[in-house]
């Protein structure tokens, strides 16, 4: 336990909280104390255990070991509702509101003021008004406005008010609250948080952005690999120390790779999407791996989607070899550009279909015999790629959903290889997969590169980028920086830039 600076009893005390999923220990003896009337920042890279800890506090997950105490009383919520009833509310990154209901209706949802089943509108409005009032003057929301018509920032305010409307809300957990907000809205949120603190509320603020944390938080805790590696008062620490705590002591500098890039395959000039990115320029050559480092919400995924034609491009030029201009995903594939989605389960793969069907979906032409698709040719193609990539599946007929994450990802990659694309856009290619598959995928990317392909990799694991890429560009709040050779870059330096420190 760390010594506490303030004299008052903690709002929440967690002791030796431990949680494992399967063989992986996600939280390993985490202790935490949150003071009343303060903002506590929680930092850590992806996979450090932040979200698991939040889920435990919010009653979504139960710890394997360890104890929680809320205002001196043991706290072991059986579910999100039980947590709410004890005064602990979480506002997720993805908002959970009913878009068809009004602001007031959403705020009192589930605990509507009533008399024998009849709604008491006046009381509901009063309660909603009071909850919005707690946010201070920053929340100028009409109670009768339909939530679906509000901006992301306004919806977030509604969700915060809903948490506050519960009697005795005392701990508010905000998960990356600024990731979908513009500059002015961020300021508004900070004002709101200050108001809430003055009223004695405790706020657990999860974010990557060091400048935000400097502005709002009093104290901080850094998680790495499921353990608390640093904690203290924000004003007593430097950004450098925070980055080192998040990324670890060992600084591994990238080393120049012995590759000679060929002609330019893909070039972007000032690409601007509908919401994100704001400005992105780059050149990707044959035989090189170019990395894009960015935090969640920085616009890295949106950039890949815009290039591939999934999202609209508002301005700027995308040039694939000699062809310039926007294109649909089908046209991009015809130009030899392929994308592996970060969301395997919902976008990247059709989990209910077989390995063979998934793998051949984008290019069925060679599987035709006299105009009809041939099951034999399909299985042959699948068998070839299963062997080539070492996909651990019974055969091409097995459902993709039955494979492990790593093998699913190999199927997604194999689809691009089957299509024989020249430009591979890989969004978090190793998210949520085991170490062995990760190494195999890294090796494969190296081989593709040697074979003259151009690979654009987006990752929030900056050590991965340093180990994998020839050059890396950092994306921060929608703006892509210049791509620099990896020699001299480190996980630390990338994290510092991406976090805006």
């Amino acid at each position, binding site marked *: 336990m760390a010594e506490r600076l303030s004299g008052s009893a903690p709002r929440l005390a967690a002791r030796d909280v431990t949680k494992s999923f399967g063989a992986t220990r996600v939280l390993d003896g985490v202790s935490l104390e949150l003071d009343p009337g303060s903002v506590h920042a929680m930092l850590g890279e992806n996979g450090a255990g932040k979200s698991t800890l939040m889920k435990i506090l919010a009653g979504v997950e139960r710890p394997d070991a360890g104890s929680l105490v809320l205002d001196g009383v043991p706290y072991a919520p059986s579910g999100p509702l039980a947590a709410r009833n004890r005064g602990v509310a979480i506002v997720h990154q993805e908002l959970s509101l009913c878009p*068809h209901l009004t602001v007031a209706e959403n705020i009192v949802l589930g605990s509507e003021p009533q008399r024998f089943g009849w709604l008491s509108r006046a009381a509901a409005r009063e309660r909603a008004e009071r909850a919005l009032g707690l946010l201070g003057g920053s929340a100028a929301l009409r109670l009768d406005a339909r939530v679906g018509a509000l901006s992301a920032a306004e919806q977030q305010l509604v969700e915060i008010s809903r948490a506050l409307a519960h009697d005795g809300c005392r701990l508010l957990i905000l998960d990356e609250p600024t990731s979908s907000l513009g500059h002015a809205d961020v300021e508004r949120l900070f004002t709101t948080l200050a108001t809430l603190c003055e009223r004695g509320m405790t706020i657990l603020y999860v974010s990557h952005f060091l400048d935000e944390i400097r502005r709002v938080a009093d104290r901080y805790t850094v998680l790495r690999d499921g353990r608390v590696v640093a904690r203290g008062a924000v004003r007593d620490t430097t950004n450098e120390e925070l980055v080192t705590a998040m990324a670890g002591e060992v600084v591994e500098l990238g080393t120049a790779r012995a590759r000679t890039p060929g002609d330019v395959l893909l070039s972007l000039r000032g690409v601007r999407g509908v919401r994100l990115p704001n400005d992105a320029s780059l050149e990707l050559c044959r035989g090189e791996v170019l990395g894009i480092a960015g935090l969640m919400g920085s616009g890295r995924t949106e950039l890949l989607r815009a290039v591939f034609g999934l999202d609209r491009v508002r301005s700027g030029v995308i040039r694939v070899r000699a062809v310039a201009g926007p294109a649909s995903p089908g046209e991009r594939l015809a130009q030899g550009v392929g994308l592996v989605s970060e969301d395997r389960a919902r976008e990247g793969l059709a989990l209910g279909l077989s390995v063979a069907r998934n793998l051949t979906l984008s290019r069925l032409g060679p599987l035709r015999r006299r105009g009809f698709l041939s099951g034999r040719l399909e299985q042959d193609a699948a068998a070839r790629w299963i062997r080539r990539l070492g996909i651990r599946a019974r055969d091409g007929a097995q459902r993709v959903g039955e494979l492990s994450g790593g093998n699913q990802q190999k199927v997604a990659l194999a689809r691009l290889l089957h299509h024989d694309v020249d430009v591979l856009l890989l969004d978090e290619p190793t998210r949520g997969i085991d170490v062995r598959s990760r190494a195999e995928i890294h090796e494969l990317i190296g081989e593709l590169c040697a074979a003259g392909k151009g690979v654009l990799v987006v990752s929030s694991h900056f050590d991965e980028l340093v180990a994998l890429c020839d050059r890396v560009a950092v994306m921060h709040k929608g703006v892509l920086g210049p791509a620099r050779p990896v020699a001299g870059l480190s996980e630390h330096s990338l994290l510092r830039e991406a976090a805006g420190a």
Partner: protein
Amino acid sequence: MRELLRRAWVGPLGALVAVYLLFSALAPATFTGGVNLATMLRQTVVVAISSLGMTFVILLGGIDLSIGSAVALTSVVVARLLQSGVGVGGAVALGVLVTAVTGWLNGALTARGKITPFIVTLGSMSVLRGAAKGLAGEQKIDADPRGLDLLMTGGSGAALPAGVWLALLLAAGAAIVLHFTVFGRHVVAIGSNERTARLCGVPVERVIMAVYALGGALTGVAGVLEFSTLTVGDPTDSIGLELEAIAAVVIGGGSLAGGQGSIAGTMLGALLMTVIKTGCTHVGLPNWVQEILTGFIIVVAVGVDRLRRR
């Protein structure tokens, strides 16, 4: 003003007025006037009452395909009971109770059994139809309606029979439940975002079962009125009624994705379909033209609604 235009029922009301005026111009002699209006209202009653239940079900994000079969079953049950000497009150109460229970079962299989409502009610559509045929011995059952027929035939000329007033009363009641009770609010919340509703402590399963039971009960009332109209229990009656009810809800601004729809809109939607049918007959258009027109109206109504809300 803009707020008013966004109301779900404004679209169908506009369409109804337009179609009514169109047919009034095309067949001024027979289509206009109170008598025809009363007839059209009378013809809408059964669809309208079953659409009330459907509105709740669709607001919830569900669907009920068993409505046509349930109406036929009720008419058979009521006829059988009257035939065997049960009093009018008892026959009506039991007829409504049967469909309320089958509706509740639909809800239980959906909410607790986690089977999609489309499949559950596709099954019960067949089960209830079979039950109606079995109970009726595969033929129409003649029974002395003992005054029940007056529900639909009472009132002369432009005066409205009791069944129409009952439909209006039930519609008003449904609108009140939807807007002024916690139950109604929870229905919309579940249809809008079920996970959020659960997170906020809404008793999701109980509400779902209650909605299907309510829908069943309203269908039972529709079935009683169908018996009043036919004065026989007909097991092969009302095939496809569920689709008309769904059409009424959708024309009235309802969304099959849930969370969206209104009682007023649904009632206008049901009436719109009757006006088109009757109007076509008065103008002398054959039945197949009516069906094509109705089909177009459904798709156009939804398309226009999308544009209007953008």
